[in-house]
């Protein structure tokens, strides 16, 4: 039966229309589609899909409930493991995680696990809110530094175990990259707020505007009575290329470009107070998910031409296939095997053009990808109004440099055990991008989850 049902496509806003608005692109399944998709699941005895899930969601169990139409039960099952299902259903790279292992995918297409997760989470949000009863208090206090995916997951799991959790967030609102980085059209901010409300209901306290490393140090938190600290401060230090003209007006880091737009609502200027400039021609350097987000944001801010400029070829682009496809559909142009070598500006210091050089691919390098080699004499100049640097980011230095007990890698990341998040300092755990370098939301969540388990064990000692 299940083999005869094809995978149900995700309804989406029309590309021409959506490239001009900030509303969500993927519209979500309706109930009939969700039930039909759930019926495709083979309910394997040994569900391989779960191996691919960093937060260990009981995937077949929830899908069976969807197939039966018991959405309430399905939601309970998901939330037992995942405090942010509406976020994960939207931004997880399922094709390289749960869905990659789906048996159906070997001969046919895998079950759309992510779409089902999103459907269940969105359905639940529309229901009368259930009372959340926090478990018996253990009397232990945990400080979580950073309210991004790692911190929120760790905080939620620890609260479910009865610990008193306070999350310290540097910005004026919790959510981390979910609020400042990922655009509204991919992850509506109301969805993020909803998930955070749930974590608050679990009893977690949030202290916004609190920059740990400045207002308090990690050591002070421990002295002030916190029994353990989890550091999930993320990859908050953008890289630049160190080429001439990079400090001209109009050259943004992706973090700045996206933060102005998402967190500070610059698309609504002057109703909001933070301005942004996206001229007629915008070039985004890099080809990861952040680059796709930036290029698509530029279109929505009114750019007529939005380019992805990438020094390798299409098959090496690190972004999710779905994001690349969405960007192409919306009209983003791809300038591959190309990279800027210089930016040029006018007398006011405003960007006017960039000089690029062409590349060809050589032998595979250390990353296993074919190494791009510049072609001498292939330089060309193109007019450009804005450039967005989306070539990655390093660890934010504020916590690492103010916590002498931590051990750091040569790049400044915190050294922590992969399974437990335990750092070189007793009682201090870390996870997410601050440990691994820039990665995905779900990997950070997985690290937060593992650390919560380890912290729970540590507190029981």
């Amino acid at each position: 039966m299940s083999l005869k049902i094809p995978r149900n496509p995700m309804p989406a806003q029309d590309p021409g229309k959506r490239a001009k608005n900030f509303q969500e692109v993927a519209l979500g399944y309706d109930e009939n589609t969700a039930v039909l998709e759930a019926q495709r699941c083979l309910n394997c005895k040994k569900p391989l899909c779960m191996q691919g899930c960093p937060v260990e969601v009981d995937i077949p169990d929830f899908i069976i409930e969807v197939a039966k139409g018991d959405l309430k039960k399905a939601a309970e099952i998901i939330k037992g493991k995942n405090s942010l299902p509406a976020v994960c259903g939207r931004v997880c790279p399922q094709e390289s995680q749960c869905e990659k292992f789906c048996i159906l995918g070997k001969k046919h297409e895998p079950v759309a696990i992510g779409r089902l997760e999103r459907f269940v989470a969105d359905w639940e949000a529309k229901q009368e809110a259930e009372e959340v009863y926090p478990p018996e208090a253990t009397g232990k206090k945990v400080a979580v530094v950073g309210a991004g995916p790692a911190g929120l997951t760790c905080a939620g799991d620890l609260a479910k175990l009865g610990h008193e959790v306070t999350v310290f967030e540097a910005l004026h609102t919790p959510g981390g990259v979910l609020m400042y980085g990922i655009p509204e059209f991919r992850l509506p901010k109301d969805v993020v707020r909803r998930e955070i409300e749930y974590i608050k209901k679990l009893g977690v306290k949030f202290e916004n505007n609190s920059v740990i490393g400045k207002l308090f140090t990690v050591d002070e938190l421990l002295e002030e009575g916190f029994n353990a600290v989890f550091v999930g401060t993320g990859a908050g230090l953008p890289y630049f290329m160190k080429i001439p003209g990079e400090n001209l007006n109009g050259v943004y880091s992706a973090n700045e470009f996206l933060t102005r737009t998402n967190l500070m609502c610059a698309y609504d200027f002057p109703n909001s107070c933070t301005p942004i400039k996206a001229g007629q021609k915008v070039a985004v350097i890099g080809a990861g998910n952040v680059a796709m987000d930036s290029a698509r944001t530029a279109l929505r801010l009114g750019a007529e031409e939005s380019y992805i400029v990438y020094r390798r070829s299409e098959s090496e682009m690190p972004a999710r296939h779905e994001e690349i496809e969405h960007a192409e559909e919306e009209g983003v142009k791809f300038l591959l095997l190309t990279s800027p070598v210089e930016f040029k500006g006018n007398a006011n210091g405003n960007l006017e053009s960039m000089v690029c050089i062409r590349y060809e691919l050589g032998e595979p390098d250390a990353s296993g990808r074919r190494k791009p080699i510049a072609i001498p004499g292939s330089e060309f100049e193109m007019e450009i109004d804005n450039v967005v640097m989306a070539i990655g980011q390093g660890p934010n230095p504020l916590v690492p440099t103010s916590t002498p007990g931590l051990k750091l890698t040569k790049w400044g990341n915190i050294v922590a055990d992969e399974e437990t998040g335990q750092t070189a300092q007793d009682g201090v755990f870390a996870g997410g991008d601050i440990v691994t370098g820039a990665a995905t939301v779900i990997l950070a969540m997985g690290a937060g989850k593992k650390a919560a388990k380890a912290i729970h064990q540590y507190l029981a000692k």
Partner: protein
Amino acid sequence: MFMIGIILNFFVGRVAYMLWKKVLLHKVETEVLLKMYKIVNQQKIGENLALLDVQAPQIAQKAKAGQFVIVRIAEKGERIPLTIADFDREKGTITLIFQEVGRTTQRMALLKTGDNILDLVGPLGEPTHLANFGTVVCIGGGVGIAPIYPIAKALKECGNKVISIIGARCQNLLFWEDKMRDVSDELFIATDDGSVGQKGFVTDVLKQLMADNKLDKVWAIGPMVMMKAVAQVTKPTQIDTIVSLNPIMVDGTGMCGACRVQVGDETKFACVDGPEFDGHLVDFDLAMRRLSYYKDEEKRALAQKECQGGGCGCH
């Protein structure tokens, strides 16, 4: 007729102001639940210059000379950096001084004692490197007098001989003469029009000081042109000169890079690497150009004073 006009004007203005205030206060009250940054003292200290003492005990506890905070006064408001002009650890307050130059600072100037600031983050940036250097000169120009004060005070406490120069275009823009005198061994004043102190620039006083004294270190905070001029004056004799930069910032924690400045061969982030840098290495022209990138948008924002809706806090 003229009198009626004034009275009418006064009342219309007052009613509009009260209505605006009611809405703003309501918003602030409902949105700030946990952290309250209450204004315990608000003062006009000069032409378009305002001072706020804000309750922020945690920040006051940690603040050091040279550091700054990021302020946001309304939902959809922008995040602006302001240097901590003073702090009182016992009272748990910090002092902010600002010039009304744009939409946000104009609105901030309307806040009164008892109002709350929506978001206040800090203390940010690296504190001033303090030591006994010998004879130091602290120069504050215009609103830059505010951030130079805690530095002069701290340098004095370290045993330095502190010579201070404060300057402004005219007397109406000058403030904290007494406070600066209290923390300085000598205080000089310069105004462009000579309305108070010596007629001329702070650099004129500095040149005189350099001729008469052996100076070990100079701090200069003020408009970019002033800092550039000071750095040019001290460069030939290689007197260590520290300037404090105030570029455009968004998060203030190193995350966005909006505040990048060129210092020698390196690009630095003013928010985490600064805000103080070696004045002889800073590319001031670049810094000035970067400060003016949103000039047109700032004009648009100011023109939109009669706001038609939204969450910016002006209605």
